[in-house]
């Protein structure tokens, strides 16, 4: 709410200053794959649809929830949440927003044809009931605390577009009607997306008259376009260019920590792990002392300083401290190669063993270089390392199910996790909980780590509606899993955006890594 007030204030202050039509040009790393907000549940699409559409609940730059199309929400009993909707909101086509649009949206969103990643995730097991035009009830079978977070992920479309609306109709603009700050104008795939100010926006006048978004995937070209003044604002500033841009008086950088942790996952379900040699068929990663030794052998400060050029933060848990459900008690493991060697000797590997680290080379910031650094650091304490990196298109399939019987193929992998919900339950549920396909747990638990004590805490937390209690349970689960080294966290990614000083813009860095025009403000 506060952000909207400041935005509105900024808009009023600058309304006089920029009387002429101002077009803000944006150079984007990743282009959305459709203008249909329910077609593809992935970062670039969700970021863009938030310009044109809104959910009942919005997330601010730090992923704190704030009122959107709902003015308030609360659980009225163990299994029912009540949402009071905002009155007097109009869609871009002038039609009135009310509960029918909400019900319509939640029926359509999980059932978009050909969707490669469905929004059903957030709607499964929930039913919705219209109480009156501006009250909606969401009902679940069991107590469900994540209701507001889940519904903050689904933007509302107008029921006027009809039941059989297709993704193509959104792409052409015919059905691209939302309540958001900007109206959709035109999309030329691969070339430009045009949006313009929604003058009737309920939260005050949006900052820019017109916004032209250009996808420029190539890193040096995107930076060059900014330097040349062809665009006013870019995202995903490559770490290698940050030093140079800092010295340029025309450029303003803004960077912020993300909800993404880069971590190592270890094979915990095979006695004879395929990429480990010299252990007579034993899996050393099942020994806590070996995991501890690996964690101690990694110099996180050095990775941050050298590989990441200072643009990252050493990690000790699943989400940066301060996020919901993190623990104050777990800290990043300090670098201690002597201690690591000692632990390895104690565990019965005084001469180490052989191991291969696998990782992607086009997914996370500097991913291949991080894998190489880890390889060198572990070699230094006596583990004979090999490093293998590959394109994400090959890596993730193998890492999840490339082995016999669709088991994970590798022994020791470098991966990353962004907690879209902004609370630790996201990572705990998917990475740490024992894999249980039926209950939807551990889908990305590629090491098959399993700890009944942690599982119990996670399940308990996910059934606790009381925020304070749930936060405590999540923190407890985090502590146990981290002390047991279910994964080895390396660092939290820091994202950087850059604007041109002449354009008078500043980006408020978002922890969800999204590039949204709503977070771009005039200085």
């Amino acid at each position, binding site marked *: 709410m506060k952000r909207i007030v400041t935005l509105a204030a900024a808009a009023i202050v600058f309304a006089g200053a920029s009387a002429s039509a101002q077009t803000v040009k944006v*150079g984007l790393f990743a282009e959305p*794959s*459709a203008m*249909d907000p329910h*077609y*593809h*549940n*992935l970062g670039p699409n969700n970021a863009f649809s938030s310009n044109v559409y809104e959910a009942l609940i919005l997330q601010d730059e730090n992923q704190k929830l704030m009122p959107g199309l709902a003015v308030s929400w609360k659980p009225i009993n163990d299994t029912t949440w009540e949402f009071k909707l905002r009155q007097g909101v109009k869609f871009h086509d002038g039609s009135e927003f009310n509960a029918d649009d909400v019900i319509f949206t939640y029926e359509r969103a999980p059932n978009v*044809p*050909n*969707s*490669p*990643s*469905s929004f*059903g*995730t957030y709607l*499964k097991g929930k039913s919705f009931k219209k109480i009156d035009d501006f009250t909606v009830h969401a009902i679940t079978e069991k107590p469900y605390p994540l209701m507001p977070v889940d519904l903050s992920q689904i933007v509302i479309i107008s029921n006027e577009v009809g039941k059989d609306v297709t*993704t*193509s109709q959104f792409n052409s603009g015919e059905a691209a009607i939302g309540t958001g700050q900007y109206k959709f104008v035109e999309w*030329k*795939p*691969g*070339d*430009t997306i045009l949006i313009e100010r929604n003058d009737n926006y309920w939260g005050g006048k949006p900052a820019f008259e017109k916004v032209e978004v*250009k*996808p*420029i*995937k*190539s890193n*040096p*070209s*995107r930076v*060059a*376009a900014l*330097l*040349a*003044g*062809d665009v006013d604002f870019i995202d995903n500033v490559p770490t290698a260019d940050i030093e140079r841009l800092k010295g340029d008086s025309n450029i303003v950088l803004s960077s912020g920590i993300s909800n993404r942790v880069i971590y190592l996952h270890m094979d915990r379900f095979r006695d004879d792990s395929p990429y480990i040699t010299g252990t007579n068929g034993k899996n050393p990663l099942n020994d806590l002392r070996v995991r501890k030794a690996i964690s101690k052998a990694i110099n996180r400060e050095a990775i941050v300083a050298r590989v990441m050029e200072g643009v990252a933060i050493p990690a000790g848990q699943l989400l940066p401290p301060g996020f919901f459900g993190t623990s104050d008690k777990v800290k990043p493991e300090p670098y201690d190669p002597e201690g690591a060697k000692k632990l390895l000797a104690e565990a019965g590997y005084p001469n180490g063993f052989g191991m291969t680290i696998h990782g992607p080379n*086009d997914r996370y910031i500097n991913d291949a270089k991080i894998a190489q650094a880890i390889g060198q650091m572990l070699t230094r304490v006596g583990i004979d390392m090999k490093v293998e990196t590959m*394109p*994400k*298109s*090959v890596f*993730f*399939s*193998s890492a*999840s*199910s490339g082995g016999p019987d669709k088991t994970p193929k590798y022994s020791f992998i470098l991966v990353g*996790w*962004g907690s*879209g*919900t902004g609370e630790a339950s*996201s990572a705990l549920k*998917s990475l740490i909980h024992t894999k249980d*396909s*039926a209950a*939807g*747990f551990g*889908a*990305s638990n590629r090491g098959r780590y399993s700890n009944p004590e942690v599982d119990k805490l996670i399940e308990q937390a996910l059934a606790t509606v009381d925020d304070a209690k749930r936060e405590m349970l999540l923190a407890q689960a985090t502590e146990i899993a981290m002390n047991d080294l279910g994964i080895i966290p390396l660092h939290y990614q820091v994202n950087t955006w850059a604007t041109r000083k002449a354009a008078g813009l500043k980006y408020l860095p978002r922890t969800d890594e999204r590039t949204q025009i709503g977070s771009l403000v005039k200085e």
Partner: protein
Amino acid sequence: MWAYLTRRLAQAIAVVFVMAVIVFFGVNVIGNPVDILINPEFTEAEYQEAIRALGLHLPLHEQFFVFLGNALEGDLGISFVWGEPALQLIAQRLPATLELAGAAMFLSIVLGVPLGMYAGSKPHSWVSKSIVSSSILGFSLPTFWVGIMMIMVFAVMLGILPSTGRGDTVLVFGIEWSFLTWNGLTHLAMPAVNLALTNIALVIRLSRAGTREVMLQDYIKFARAKGLSQRRITLVHVLKNTLIPVVTVLGLELGSLIAFSVVTETVFAWPGMGKLIIESIQVLDRPVVVAYLMLTVLLFVSINFLVDVIYSLLDPRVRVSGAR
């Protein structure tokens, strides 16, 4: 004659079919698109649902028959990423690529031929020597590096050309062209030069060699003896005879200009086919990759078939031996 053509047609169809098999199965061996396209916070059930939505739950050979059945009706599948027909996506981006390749081809000719002929007619002057030695750079410098350097110099430092993207377009015959507007031309300039560099160098060398050879021919001597002006000799007699190998080679090069525009399109964020195909490969958008390759196969097979037809019309021996 008809027997020959029928046989060639059958061969062409067989080639297309074999290529369809190779392309389809080859593309389907690598990775699993769902792993790339799905939101990381998926559950197992959603994963299975996404696999079904993309039609990947069927055994590979059944997927192939579905693909084949649709392909016969002119439908090469729906893109996993964009959710639109693959052919439509390619067709949308085709004009941008053709425009870029055409501009590069134009530059290769108008810059390459005069420079090469000059270097050929005055082989010992220092200008000629520097033309020839700088053409080596055109061959040897990597396209992406030259592209970035051009952006740095002309867009960032001098600020006279836009760095990336395609400029304003105008609609002619239902297709958007950017070379008809000034803004579009400024956007086209750097990518076109970048893409043309190798070919300019090639044309310089070809026309230089051709000129040197033609200059020594008897008919040139005869023309001189007849008292024709040097200007007329060069622009008519030498030029015509030099152009023969240049045209042959450039014809072949046009195909590779369209195919190798990938690098240039990526560096300059040019919204063409090359950029689409490379991005589709990166995220395993199989229908788009398959459609692109099948179109290429179809193009080459039909060109070859037409050439065979023309051969048989021109050369009776082909018809006769074919009938037997």
